């Protein structure tokens, strides 16, 4: 269902692009609903979530050790890139989603996800991002990214994801 929808959205935007091309090649049509990235040739709209994801190339997510919420060196590098982008687009707001792996109890994981999201937020603020632009939300263990029940899946799920708001 999702695939189908995405395909038709891409088709629609490609057609819209083609229609516009002769008239005003410099102006892109408005983003289609759902912020699906337009065809590769055009590239994502600068300053959009799609642009953020493309620039971060995975570094929009930072990872944590079991039961920990400290920002390690790899996470520092990722957060520095995130901060750079956010400073470049000072009108953009972002939500940081905190997550935990499934090997924790529900309430505790909600608290742990909140802690992780705040650790990421605080680091971005320390790099100069205005705190009022950043919100946090914890999903505890409710929204795993990797679906297995092993160390590698859990490591991928102990994360904080920065999502910019278009």
């Amino acid at each position, binding site marked *: 269902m999702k695939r189908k929808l995405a395909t038709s959205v891409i088709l629609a935007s490609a057609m819209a692009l083609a229609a516009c091309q002769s008239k005003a090649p410099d102006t892109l049509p408005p983003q289609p609903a759902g912020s699906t990235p337009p065809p590769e040739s055009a590239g994502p709209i600068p300053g959009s979530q799609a642009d953020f994801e493309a620039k971060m190339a995975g570094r929009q997510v930072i990872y944590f050790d079991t*039961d920990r919420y400290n920002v390690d060196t790899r996470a520092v590098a990722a957060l520095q890139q995130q901060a750079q982008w956010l400073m470049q687009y000072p009108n953009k707001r972002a939500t940081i989603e905190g997550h935990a792996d*499934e*090997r*924790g109890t529900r*309430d505790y994981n*909600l608290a742990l996800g*909140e802690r992780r999201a705040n650790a990421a937020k605080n680091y971005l603020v320390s790099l100069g991002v205005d705190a009022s632009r950043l919100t946090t939300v914890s999903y505890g263990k409710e929204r*795993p990214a990797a679906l297995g*029940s092993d160390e590698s899946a859990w490591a991928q799920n102990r994360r904080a994801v920065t999502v910019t708001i278009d």
Partner: protein
Amino acid sequence: MKKLIACIAFVITVPAAAQTAAPVIPATPVEQGGLTGSVSDEKEWQDLGIAIPAFATDANKPTPANAQGTGALGVEVARVITADLRNNGLFLPVGPDALPRPSYPEIPAPNWGIWSGRNADMLVHGHVVAEGDGNLTIACHLYDVSLRQQLVSQTWRLPPADWRRGAHKCADLVYSRLSGESPFFDSKIAYIAETGPKGHRTKQLAIMDSDGANHRFITTGKATALTPRYSPDYRSIVYLSYLNGNPRIYVYDLASGSQRLVTQSTNPTFAPRWSPDGKTILYSMAVNGNTDIYSVSAQGGPSKRLTDAPGIDVGGSFSPDGRSIVFESDRSGSQQIYIMNADGSNQRRISFFGGRAATPEWSPRGDQIAFTHIAGNFRVALMDPSGGNVRHLTDSWQDEAPTWSPNGRIIQFFRTERNSGRTSLWQVDLTGRNLRRLATPVDGSDPAWGPVLP
């Protein structure tokens, strides 16, 4: 045991004529005989054979409770009682489908000859009568077959829609009278119904009777719902919802279907719990990433912060007298269990046995704390309020979030299946016996057992 039975002459006869309002269900103040606090000396009563033939009726009349009238309803009532006892591993019940059907006049005067030949120690008789005002009268008698004597009887007047409550009340009467324990069948369970793939679960608030009947979804699942708790008066449910995108605790009013935030705050709130008197709600709130436990009047108003450790302080469960709270905290470096006074003073750790300890729930009897022990796998365990005498009740990959039956004899929890992430509700008694899965229409988690209905 026999001596105990002889000592407690507990016979309530409620004259039906004296009853006007429905439902009239008097409390059953069964004194607890010497079994309180013990977990091992139940074998004697467990082996009692109990015959539960169909309940009789004075005349087969139409009732909204059963399309075939009160006669068929009498069979259903006996089946519900039999299932209550059998499914919980209590006694050796034989139901109406395997027994002769007593006539209406035999209910207060059993035909002993029939029953003494059937290897039944105990006999349950009852009747179902449709009253002129549309209500039902359900009577329940418990007889000792060898003594040829009635041990207890009670009558309830109920709206037809509540007929199953009459059956549960009768099962409670039989159970309480024979075991010396407090009743628990006439109670309800709130839980989270789960559907969909692991990465995208739909989680709905749902309720059901203690035997799984009268199941109802309360929320649609559009917003993720978690961790419900029934108010002690069953009028509302406090739970977490991601309505509007952020986790917040709501108090849902069952009669009106409306809900309100438990506290006006922009911070996330979670892990709600009621005080035993229903006047106070405990909750956890994260401020700048630091989670502490707060209490607030169930009517609203200002919150009181109970913990201020830099770590995660979360959850909380009142002692039955409302004076203490058991909660979890990772202030020592890992999740452990602590007790404090209800005002937040005198916080002290009680779990010192290795691994992590989470989700403590104080027994309604006060003498045990159920919790999730995390040492490799997640297991439901018990300890004394002093932190001693740890006993594991389950042994699976991930069992968590225990909740007590109203009488403190049974624990429900939820089990998560490795890899698939599928969840199910389970229960086990506090001796570790009678482990069984509860039937739910879809997957289930976060069970919360409410008190016995008045």
